């Protein structure tokens, strides 16, 4: 069937750089392990299922440089294997423990199977490095992998220092090339944060497209003829794709959205909290603090504390139903839009990847089924990637998008509020100091140690700039950790600055920092030079 329009689904996969070799166990590293278990591997499995069935699906994913660095890190890989081994052991015990209760036992056996499968996929199929998995689908032409700011720095609040912005882009492109073997064509600006003029920097590094939140396009100048339903070119020639509100909301709104369905798995009931402490102790925090393990036996059920037992096949059925509903609604939306447009509309639906699977456990099944339906010959909408849309419609309106982000209220408030505004005094200062050092030393014939110190200073600056820290402070979740990370990196930078300036570099200190904050091994500090 001739398609009437297109859907471009974009999954933004990101985690801040959390890696603590100095500790044997570090709780926040679980963010990565949980995301691998519940999101990254299940999504790869969904892709695999589609691929195996010969379905030519199209989807876009951003893998942030921090995530690429962690996925390819041997220490974290090793720790993930330990993590999944412990989970398999727990699941084995659970299968025995629940043998007299068939409904629980059914869920327990599902977990055991999934954990064993995950381990097998991680270790044997992808050789401990999931990037290989994503690369496979990039090579097959199904997955457009895009990059993101080097450490997920929120660029609008960095724009007083264009070198700082440029470094976030350049280092991202380098990291992409290192891990994926070619240059990225698109970028997900961290937090969808676009600031007018930054597209010039994207252009400089060969990036062809990025995304903005809805109002970034809607409030662009001049008025965008197609709203968010077609890309627009920035004055630099880089294309901007605006986010569709309706498809976002239909997935994520608690009242109208799918993930709140009572058949789906309840996120907040985990055996880490529910079971006898002595029994569960080996699988929680070594200090005996209860944490989520990933084994969750209940469905959402409703607004009650008496939760019903999760039924995996019933939940899968609902995920398919919801995917069909989502597909149906996109068809209707696109048919409706077609009345007002003289070209085929494009609906851009970006989401945080980790929501699928981690929070919405059945999310990867939903994605798989939606892609399946969209690729069916009877479907009158098709999925495609932004590049493919630009190939179909190479002529687009030229506009200047408006400053925007996808955070609460659409601008900088989340990252610039009384809870976190104190960081900018330091972030702006150290970025300036970095420019000062780089400018001075780029023309000096400096020795290896100085170069190492400068490279490390750049790493500390970049890590301090992660928008995640400000985000956590704003949302009042693991504030202590976010504050510590911010202070650590700023202080480390300042110490390096003093040592470099005073020509008193301590080799042990440099070595220790390289060991702690080892991201971007081939970083070139001269990007900061004027």
């Amino acid at each position: 069937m001739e398609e009437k329009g297109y859907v471009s689904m974009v999954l933004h996969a990101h985690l801040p750089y959390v890696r603590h070799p100095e500790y044997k166990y570090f709780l926040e590293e679980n963010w990565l392990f949980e995301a691998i278990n519940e999101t990254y591997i299940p999504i790869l499995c969904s892709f695999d299922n589609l691929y195996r069935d010969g379905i030519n699906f199209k989807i876009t994913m951003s893998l942030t440089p921090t995530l690429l660095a962690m996925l390819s890190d041997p220490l974290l890989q090793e720790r993930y294997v330990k993590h999944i081994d412990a989970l398999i052991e727990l699941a084995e015990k659970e299968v025995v423990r629940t043998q007299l209760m068939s409904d629980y036992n059914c869920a327990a056996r599902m977990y055991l199977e999934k954990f064993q499968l995950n381990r097998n996929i991680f270790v044997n199929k992808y050789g401990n490095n999931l990037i290989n998995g994503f690369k496979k689908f990039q090579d097959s032409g199904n997955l457009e992998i895009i990059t993101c700011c080097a450490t997920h720095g929120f660029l609008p609040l960095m724009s007083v220092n264009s070198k700082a912005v440029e470094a976030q882009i350049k280092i991202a492109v380098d990291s992409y090339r290192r891990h994926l073997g070619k240059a990225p064509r698109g970028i997900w600006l961290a937090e969808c944060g676009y600031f007018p003029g930054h597209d010039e920097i994207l252009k400089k590094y060969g990036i062809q497209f990025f995304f903005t939140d809805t109002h970034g396009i809607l409030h662009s100048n001049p008025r965008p003829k197609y709203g968010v339903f077609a890309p627009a070119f920035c004055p630099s020639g880089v294309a901007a794709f605006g986010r569709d509100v309706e498809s976002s909301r239909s997935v994520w709104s608690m009242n109208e959205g799918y993930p709140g369905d009572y058949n789906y798995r309840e996120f907040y009931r985990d055996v880490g909290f529910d079971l006898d402490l002595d029994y569960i102790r080996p699988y929680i925090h070594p200090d005996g603090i209860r944490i989520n393990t990933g084994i969750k036996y209940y469905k959402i059920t409703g607004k009650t504390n008496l939760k019903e037992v999760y039924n995996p096949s019933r939940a899968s059925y609902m995920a398919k139903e919801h995917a069909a509903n989502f597909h149906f609604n996109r068809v209707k939306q696109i048919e409706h839009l077609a009345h007002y447009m003289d070209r085929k509309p494009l609906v851009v639906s970006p989401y945080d990847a980790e929501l699928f699977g981690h929070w919405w456990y059945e999310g990867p099944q939903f994605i798989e089924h939606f892609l399946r339906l969209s690729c069916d010959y009877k479907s009158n909408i098709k999925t495609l990637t932004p590049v493919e849309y630009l190939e179909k419609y190479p002529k687009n309106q030229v506009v200047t998008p408006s400053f925007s982000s996808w955070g609460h209220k659409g601008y900088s408030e989340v990252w610039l509020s009384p809870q976190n505004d104190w960081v900018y005094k330091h972030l702006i200062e150290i970025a300036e100091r970095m420019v000062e050092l780089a400018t001075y030393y780029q023309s000096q014939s400096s020795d290896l140690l100085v170069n190492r110190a400068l490279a490390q200073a750049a790493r500390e600056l970049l890590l301090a700039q992660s928008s995640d820290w400000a985000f956590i402070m704003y949302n009042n979740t693991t504030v202590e950790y976010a504050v510590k990370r911010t202070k650590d990196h700023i202080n480390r930078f300042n110490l390096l600055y003093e040592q470099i300036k005073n020509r008193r570099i301590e080799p042990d200190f440099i070595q220790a920092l390289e060991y702690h904050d080892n991201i971007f091994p081939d970083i070139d500090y001269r990007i900061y030079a004027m």
Partner: protein
Amino acid sequence: MVVKKSVNQEANVKKAKTVEKKANVPGDKMSVKKSVKTSVTPAKNESGSARKISIAAPEKGVKKTALTTGKKAVSRPKPAAVSKTKKVKAEKEIETKEKTSVKKTSLKSESKAPEKNKNSKTLPSTLKATKKSNSGPKKSLHAKVSASSENKKRENPAQKSAVKKTAVKTPVNTMSATSVTSAEVENLYGKHYIINTSQDLPQSYGKNRLITLIRDPEWIYAFWDVADDKINEVKNIVGNEDFFKSKRILRVYDAAAAGKYSDIELTKTASSWYIHVKPEASYSLELGYLTPKGNFVKLAESNKIETPRQSMSEVKDEKWMVKDGVFEKIYELSGGTQLGMSSADIMQAMARGMRPEEFSELITKGISSETLSSQFSMEKKREEEDIKRQRKFWMVLNTEIIVYGATEPDASVTLMGKPIKLRQDGTFSIRMALPDSDIDIPAVGVSSDKVDEIIITPCVHKHTNYNKKENSF
């Protein structure tokens, strides 16, 4: 960006006490959010006009507020009151005395309704300004509008920031390589350093600078760093006596009104400020002292900034024209009429571990096109189911049995017909959760030569009874 829930929970466990305390703070986040939601919308028009008055055309009325309320207006820790204060003579000796108390009251004002504070001695300064200007002289209307709209805007960022700043005061930094405590420890990779670098950050970098950042179309944030030398320099220029009578101000230039500016009077200790501005306008700021004689001595000047547009552009593109009304339709279908609360908020909050119930109030209920009708029916069905489940008394009793024992290491043992694995010493242990029922759990041990057999059978009963009693009054 996800998976923070587990950690969150850990923090809760660890710091149960602190968390409890936090919950009692008046500015508790959730409650503030609620009040924001209810109060912002009605105030919108008012604040819009107030904005025009307070910044685009600074009026004498605003200045009068500052005069009538004297010290209060001077030290109130909130943005705005962008008043042309050239001639204002403030009584600043009170400022130092009242600084802390004022800051605290501004926190209270977040959770208390203004009406309740009428005539109260602990009246927050911001509110007092409003009341007085009500009966104040000419043009006080402007001041009233401006001040009251600020009160309604509960998210007024600097109120919170002032509070925060008193709490999180960082000592002057004494950073040097020696302050790093490094210890060698063993781990996977052998010996290495643990570096402790989480000491307080420098309070000043000894530079004279003023930076402005855009928070949203209506608010900008300015922060500054001024070296003592620079302040001493100013002291020398204006003379000691005049210096102590001078006010520290932020001078805000609106690029659209050439040469015109408005002044914001700062508290002595402030090092940042949120300023209420207009969308789609261009600003630059100067930080300095305003002497009693009206001279402005500049300490630093800021970068130029342009606030973003808050609505669709008026500029139409000749090459990309549409028929009348089509753009408006596209704008509406794009969700343009319901911007502000992006669904990304919902996604992100949930992804990062917030309970959905806490968040549901933030969700906009608007539907952008006709296409969602099929979802409505689904939603309705779910609601009905929910109602059925609600208000049901409940109780859970988990029961587990641990069956453990020992036999000859080479014997074979089955439990309920299933073979179980013996440890090397012949012991075994099985843990099982029990459902509601009468269960026999036979354990059968057979010797390796298959001659002897021992059967031991624990019998377990678990029953749940639902009784309905007459409601006795």
